[in-house]
C-alpha cells in the first residue's frame, strides 16, 4: 500500500473519468459522481497516511527534464492533504448540483472532472514546472464552463477571468525563471531550504542584483489575482455571477484556494523576508479586501453577487492571517504562538470557507432550478413556509458563513483573529468591522428570502426532495462536526503548521 503512487493515482482518476464522461452522453453525470466519490475516498486515504511530524509525506520523485531542473516531485503535508479533501468534496457537491445540464452534459462533466484534476495536481506538485502546468491548465476548463454554460453576460466575464489570471501567471512565471536562473532549482522544498538559510537571497543578489523584492512582487501578483486581493479582485464578481452555480462552487471552493495555497507553499517560504518588509501595505490591502468585500456584498441585489463579494471578504481573512504572520525573525515566544494560531486559522478557514461557500452556492442553484433562474433577493420572500427543510438547511449554511460558534465557519476566523491581534492589532480591529457587516448582510438575506409574507407565486415552492436531502445532509453534518470537534482537522494541520513555521525565516 505504501508503495502505491497514491498522489499520481488521485490526479489521474479524474482525467480518466473525464475521458469516459465525454463519450457517455446521458450517463455522464453518473460517471462523474462515481469518479468524484472514488477521488474523495482516495483523498481520505491520503489524509490517513500523512506523516505524524507534519512534514511532507507520500513523496514521489522522478527525473523529468534534468537539464531544466524539472522533476516529477509530488508530496503532501497536512495543508496539501486537507486541500485534496476539500477539492474532492467540492467537486462532488458541484456534480451533485449540476443535475440539469441540458446542453452537452458529456463535455460539461468532462470539464468539471478536468478542473478537479487540475486542483489535485496543483495541491500535490512540489516542482514549479509541474505545479505551473496544473495551475495554468485548470484555467481552461474553468473558462469553458463559464463561457459555454454561463449566464447572459458570460462572454466578457469568462474573458476577464482568463486574461486577469494569465497576467498574474506571467508575472509569477517570470519571477520563477529568475529564481531558477539564480539557483538552478525549481523544487519548492529545496528552494524553501535555500531561502531559510539565506542562500537564495545571496544567489539572486549575485546573479541578478538587488531584484529580490521585484521577484517577490511578481509572485505575489500571481497569487493576489487568484485569491483575490483587492484591488485585483475585479474579475471575480462577474465570473462568479455569470458562471453556472455548480461552476461557481468550484471557483470559490477550489480555485480560490489555489491562490491561498500558493501563498503558503511558495510565497511565504521563499519570499518571507520580502513579504515581512512590505507587510504594512499588504495588511492594508488585506483589510481593504475584508471590509470592501463585506460592504460590497451589502450593496448587491443578486444572490450570487452577494456571496461572490462575501467570498472576497472571507478569503480576506486568510490573506490577513498570512500577511500578519510575516514578521521579521527575532520575535518573542508569544509571537510564535500567535503565528501558529493564525496559520492554523488560515488553513482551517480555507477548508471551511470552501465547504460553506460551496454549500451556499449549492442552495442558490437549487433556488434557481425552482424559480426558472431567478436570483434577485427581492424576487423571493417567506420561503420558509412552503419549504421548511430547505430554509432550515440553507440557514445553517448561512450561519456557518456568518461565523456562528458551533459551526465550522467560526473556528478558522476565531483562530485567525486570535493570532493576528497580538501581531497587528490595528489590522485585526478594523477587520472586525468586516465581521459585523457580513453578519448584517447574511441576516438580511435570511430575512428577505425566508421570512415575511409568502408571495403568491412561491406558495408551492417545492421543498428539498429525498435525493437532494441525501446530497446535502452530509455536508451540513460536516459543518456541525467541524464546528464542535475541530481537533479532527487540527490534529493533522497543527503539526504541519509547526513544521512550516520552524522552517521559515522571515
Amino acid at each position, binding site marked *: 500500500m505504501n508503495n502505491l503512487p497514491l498522489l499520481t493515482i488521485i490526479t489521474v482518476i479524474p482525467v480518466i473519468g473525464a475521458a469516459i464522461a465525454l463519450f457517455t452522453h446521458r450517463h455522464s453525470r453518473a460517471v462523474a459522481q462515481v469518479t468524484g466519490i472514488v477521488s474523495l475516498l482516495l483523498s481520505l486515504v491520503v489524509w490517513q497516511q500523512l506523516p505524524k511530524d507534519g512534514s511532507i509525506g507520500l513523496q514521489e520523485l522522478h527525473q523529468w527534464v534534468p*537539464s531544466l531542473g524539472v522533476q516529477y516531485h509530488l508530496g503532501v503535508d497536512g495543508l496539501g492533504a486537507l486541500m485534496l479533501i476539500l477539492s474532492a468534496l467540492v467537486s462532488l457537491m458541484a456534480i451533485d448540483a449540476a443535475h440539469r445540464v441540458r446542453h452537452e452534459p458529456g463535455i460539461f462533466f468532462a470539464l468539471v472532472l478536468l478542473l478537479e484534476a487540475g486542483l489535485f495536481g496543483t495541491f500535490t506538485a512540489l516542482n514549479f*514546472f509541474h505545479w505551473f502546468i496544473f495551475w495554468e491548465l485548470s484555467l481552461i476548463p474553468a473558462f469553458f464552463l463559464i463561457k459555454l454554460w454561463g449566464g447572459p453576460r458570460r462572454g466578457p466575464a469568462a474573458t476577464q477571468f482568463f486574461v486577469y489570471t494569465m497576467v498574474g501567471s506571467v*508575472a509569477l512565471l*517570470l519571477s520563477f*525563471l529568475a529564481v531558477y536562473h539564480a539557483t538552478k532549482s525549481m523544487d519548492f522544498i529545496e528552494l524553501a531550504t535555500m531561502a531559510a538559510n539565506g542562500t537564495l537571497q545571496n544567489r539572486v543578489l549575485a546573479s541578478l542584483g538587488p531584484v529580490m523584492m521585484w521577484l517577490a512582487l511578481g509572485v505575489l501578483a500571481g497569487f493576489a489575482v487568484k485569491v483575490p486581493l483587492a484591488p485585483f479582485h475585479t474579475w471575480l464578481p462577474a465570473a462568479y455571477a455569470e458562471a453556472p452555480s455548480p461552476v461557481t462552487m468550484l471557483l470559490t471552493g477550489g480555485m480560490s484556494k489555489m491562490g491561498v495555497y500558493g501563498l503558503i507553499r511558495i510565497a511565504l517560504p521563499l519570499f518571507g523576508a520580502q513579504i515581512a518588509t512590505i507587510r504594512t501595505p499588504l495588511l492594508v490591502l488585506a483589510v481593504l479586501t475584508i471590509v470592501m468585500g463585506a460592504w460590497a456584498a451589502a450593496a448587491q441585489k443578486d444572490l450570487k453577487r452577494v456571496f461572490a463579494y462575501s467570498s472576497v471578504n472571507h478569503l480576506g481573512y486568510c490573506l490577513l492571517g498570512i500577511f500578519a504572520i510575516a514578521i521579521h525573525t527575532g520575535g518573542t515566544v508569544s509571537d510564535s504562538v500567535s503565528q501558529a494560531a493564525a496559520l492554523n486559522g488560515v488553513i482551517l478557514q480555507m477548508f471551511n470557507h470552501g465547504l460553506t461557500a460551496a454549500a451556499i452556492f449549492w442552495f442558490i442553484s437549487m433556488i434557481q432550478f425552482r424559480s426558472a433562474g431567478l436570483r434577485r433577493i427581492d424576487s423571493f420572500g417567506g420561503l420558509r413556509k412552503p419549504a421548511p427543510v430547505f430554509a432550515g438547511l440553507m440557514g445553517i449554511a448561512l450561519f456557518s458563513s456568518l461565523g456562528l460558534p458551533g459551526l465550522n465557519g467560526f473556528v478558522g476566523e476565531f483562530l485567525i483573529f486570535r493570532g493576528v491581534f497580538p501581531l497587528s492589532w490595528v489590522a485585526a480591529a478594523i477587520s472586525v468591522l468586516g465581521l459585523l457587516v457580513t453578519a448584517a448582510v447574511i441576516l438580511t438575506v435570511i430575512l428577505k428570502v425566508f421570512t415575511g409574507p409568502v408571495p403568491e407565486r412561491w406558495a408551492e415552492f417545492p421543498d428539498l426532495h429525498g435525493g437532494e436531502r441525501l446530497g446535502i445532509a452530509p455536508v451540513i453534518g460536516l459543518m456541525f462536526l467541524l464546528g464542535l470537534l475541530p481537533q479532527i482537522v487540527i490534529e493533522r494541520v497543527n503539526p504541519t503548521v509547526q513544521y512550516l513555521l520552524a522552517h521559515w525565516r522571515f
Partner: protein
Amino acid sequence: MLAWTIYISFAGALVLALMPKGNAALARVIALVVAVAGFAIAIAGFAAGAGQGRITIIDVPWVPMMGIHYTLAADGISRVLVLLTGLAAVAGVLFSWNINLRTNEFFAFFLALIGGVYGVFLSFDLFLLFVFYEIAIVPKYFLIAIWGSTRREYAAMKLALYSFVGSAMVLVVLLASYATAGSHSTGLVSLANANLPVSFQMWAFPVAFVGFGILAGLWPFHTWAPTGHVAAPTAASMLLAGVVMKLGAYGCLRVAIGLFPHGLDPWGWSFWGIGSWRDVFALLAVIGIIYGALVALAQTDFKFVIGYSSVSHMGFVLLGLVTLTQVGVDGAVLQMFSHGVIAGLLFAIVGRIVYERTHTRQLSELEGMYLGRRLPFAAWAFVIAGVASMGLPGFSGFVAELQVLMGAWIAKPWWTAASGVGIVIGVAYTWRALQMAFFTDRLPRPDEHPKEGWPKFDPITWPEITATCLLFAATLIVGIYPSILLNSIEPAVKALLAGGMQ
C-alpha cells in the same frame, strides 16, 4: 541515411511533374507516400543519431578548384529540424487532400520545396546550403501565385523579392568569408575554424543575420510574412510558417552565429544601452514579439491573426538565439520545432478546416456562423492549438518560451520583462480570435438562423483528422517530455556556442 530525405523528395517531385495530368488521386497517394517515407527516414535518423554528435553523411568534392564540397552532415539541431520538416510534409499533404486544380503540379512543387528545406538543414558546406536555400524559393513562389488566394500575385512576388534580397546578402557574406579565409574551402567547419578576423566578423555577422533573418520574420523585415501566409494555399502556409521561417532562423544560428561569433562582441561604446549587434538584434526581436502580437490583436481576417502571430513567435526564436546562452539557444531551437508544429496546425484549421467550408475568413462573418456548434471538431482543435500557441504549460510552446526567457534573464533582464508583455498580448489575441470565430455570444439575427436549421457543412474528412492528431501528438509529447528533443539539441548547441564546430 538522412540524405535520402532530400533525394526521395526531389525524386517524388520529378515523378509528379512528369506523370500524366488528370489523375489527382494517384498524385495524392504518391505525394503522401513520399512524405511519409521522408518522415520515416527522419525519425529513423533522429533515433539513430541519439546521443551522438555531428555525423557526416557524405563528403565528396564538388567543385574541387574552388574547394566546394558536397557535404551533408547532421548534428542534433539538424536532426530535430529534419524531423520537423518530415512532420510538416506529411501534415501538409494530408491537409491538401482536397486540391483539385493541377494536383500533380501542386504536389511536385510542394515536394521540391520540402526537398530544398531538408537540404538546407543537412548542408554543412556554405555554398551547398546556399544552393538549397535558393532552390526552396522557387516552388514557394509558384505555390502561392497559382494556388493562392487574397492578392496572391502580389504576395508571391513580395515573398520572392524579400527572399532574393536576403539571399543576396547571404551570398555577399559567403563570398567574402570564402575570400577572407584563404579561398580554399566553403565547408562550414573549416570556415568556423579559419579564425576570421574580428573586424571582418563585425560586419559579416549583421549582414548574414539580417539576410537570413528576413526569412525568419525579423522585424522590420517581416512584412512578407503575413501577406505571404495569408495568400498561400493551406499547405504552403503551413510550410511557410512551419518550416521556411525556420530556414531563416537556422541560417542565423548556423551561419551568422556559428561562423562569426565575434560579430556579437561589444563595440566598445554604447548608445542608450545598445552596445553590440547582439543588443541591436535582441531589441528587434523584442519589438517583433510585441509588435506582431499587437497587430494580430487588431486583425479582422482570421488568417492574418495567425500570420502576425508567427512574427511574434519567431521573435522568441531570434531572441533566444542572441542570448548566446546554452539555455536560451536550446529554447530557440525547441521553439523552432514547437512553432513549426503549432503554426502548421493553426493554419490548417483556419485555412483548410474552416475556410474550405465557410468560404470566409472575416472574423465578423464567422461570428454569425456559430461554428462552435456547427463545427465542433474545428472549435476544439483550435482550442487546443490556441492553448498550445499561447504557451500554456503542458504543450511544446511553453518549454520553448520558458527556456528562451531563462536565457534572456541571464543576458538582460529587461528583455524578459518586455517579452512577458508579448506573452500576455499573445493570450489576448488568441482568445479574441477563438471567441469571435467559434464561441460567439452574439444572438443570431433571423436571417442567420433559418427555421429549417443551418445548412450542413461538409463532414470532417479522415486526412484532416489524421493530420490534426499527428500535430497534436507532436506538441503534447514535446510539451510533456521535452527531453526527447532537448537531449539532442543540447550537445549540439553546446558545441556550436563553444566556437568552432568540431
